[in-house]
């Protein structure tokens, strides 16, 4: 069953002269790990804002087409109601934390939903443990490092136990190692809890291996949509300027220029590439 489905979705910001996204028709299944990528300004963030109703409720503007998220038509349900189903994590961790302690920040959504205290405390502890920041719970968010802050942001969304988590470039303020750890946390949530993850990212090197669905956007349109191995090895993807994982690119070069084919499975990460190379060396 599709948890997110759009049909010919077109949206224009109030002050804009041309639509930020045009004719977007996508289908995201339950439990998928979806990667959305594409050059800057291609409408990825706008699409994310549609998923929890910030567009059109917060931004106004002109929206056309259909969009249902978790079985709800976003045009008819306010963001506060959609928030129970869709969690949105933003780019800048600093601007999405507003409380004076981590614990309180994680509880913010639950407080808004009017949860009783005992239940809330349990949920908060659960979310903090899953994201590995339980020992930071009494610290002030602004004292934490960027990576820790982003974990708090993820925990605070997770605490509401949404079916879908949308993360809009959550690691663009972080260094590669911290980013890698964040991705591992996100993958864990997808893998063990079955939460549908929609991740907007440029760093495909670190994320492609986790995904099982990839959507590539360019100039407000969805250009490619499908299986990661297939899409990342296609020529079109490269021409748009998507940062294809180095392992995939290496595989491609060897195949196209030298006619060498390393195994059947196109690698998406260095680990997978290493495995392929080892097999070749052995034989």
């Amino acid at each position, binding site marked *: 069953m599709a948890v997110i489905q759009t049909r010919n979705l077109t949206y224009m910001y109030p002050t804009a002269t041309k639509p930020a996204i045009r004719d977007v028709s996508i289908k995201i299944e339950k439990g998928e790990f979806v990667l959305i990528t594409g050059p800057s300004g291609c409408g990825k963030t706008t699409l994310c*804002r549609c998923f*929890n109703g*910030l567009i059109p*409720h*917060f931004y106004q503007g002109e929206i056309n087409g259909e969009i249902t998220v978790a079985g709800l038509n976003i045009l008819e349900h306010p*963001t*506060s*109601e959609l*928030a*129970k189903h869709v*969690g*949105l994590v*933003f780019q*800048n961790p*600093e*601007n*999405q*934390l*507003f*409380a*004076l*302690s981590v*614990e*309180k920040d994680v*509880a*913010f*959504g*639950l*407080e*808004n*939903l*009017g*949860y*009783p*205290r005992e239940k*809330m*405390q349990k949920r*908060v502890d659960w979310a903090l443990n899953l994201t590995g920041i339980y020992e930071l719970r*009494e610290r*002030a*968010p*602004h004292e934490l490092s960027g990576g820790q802050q982003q974990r708090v942001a993820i925990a*605070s*969304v997770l605490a*509401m136990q949404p079916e879908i988590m949308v993360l809009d470039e959550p690691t663009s303020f972080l260094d590669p190692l911290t980013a890698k750890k964040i991705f591992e946390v996100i993958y864990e949530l997808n893998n063990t809890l079955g939460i549908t993850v929609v991740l907007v990212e440029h760093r495909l090197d670190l994320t492609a291996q986790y995904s099982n669905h990839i959507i590539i956007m360019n100039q407000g349109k969805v250009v490619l949509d499908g299986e990661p191995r297939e899409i990342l090895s296609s020529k079109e993807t490269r021409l748009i300027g998507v940062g294809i994982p180095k392992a995939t690119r290496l595989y491609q070069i060897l195949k196209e220029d030298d006619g060498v084919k390393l195994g059947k499975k196109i690698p998406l990460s260095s680990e997978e590439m290493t495995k392929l190379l080892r097999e070749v060396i052995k034989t």
Partner: protein
Amino acid sequence: MSVFDGLKFRRVYSPIHNLDPRIKFIYVCAIFVIAIMFGELLPLIILFTFQIPFVLLAGVKREWIRSMRGAAFLATIIFLTNFVFAYLGARGIGQSLENAVAMTLRFIVLIESFSIFFLTTSPDHLGLALEQTHVPYEFTFAFTTAVRFVPVLAEEAQTIMDAQKARGLELERGNFLKRIRNYIPILIPLIVSAIRRSLELAEAMESRAWGATKKRTNLYVLKMHKGDFILIAITIGILAVAIYIRLYLPIPSINQLLANIN
């Protein structure tokens, strides 16, 4: 960054910090009332020394001394005006002196008690207290968020200042008016980025079900502990004693006491 240091909050644990801010506030108000009730020097001295144990117990001696020093200028003015006018009003020098000292001390007692309150109450607690005294949540949220973003904005101001200086902006040049005008290239980017930040913040709030229900709950709840009851008892005690003294006991002035000794 020293200008902004005073605005940063630190999480400290002490018997005084753990007290319920509402009770602390009542205590401060009681001290306030008592200080207004007495114009004589002797009870004000007692009131002043009475609060010093609180400072020591809370471990905020250094900050407290700093805030007292901050009040010194105003205190001097109060002292001088009181002394001069009392003296001109043809009172003896001893009595005018005592009167002026009393007025100054009254002011210091007020500052003292308020600074104890603010030095030992985390903004977190204060927000919670506001919330539980049924102040609308929008206001308390605005308050805690403001406190939360002060260090962030201070840091940003510093970054913008550095950036503008790197482009050749000279802040410390020219006369007074020119100097103020020098800050425009700092203020504009700061305000623009603050507005942008607030939009992002609003988005994040919306995404976390802001305003989903009318009946909002709270993770933390203020509870009265033993210490709070002790403070209530102390407050009622000193208030009662103060009222009794005011109504039924004559208060000797220091001058009279000195005269008696001689």
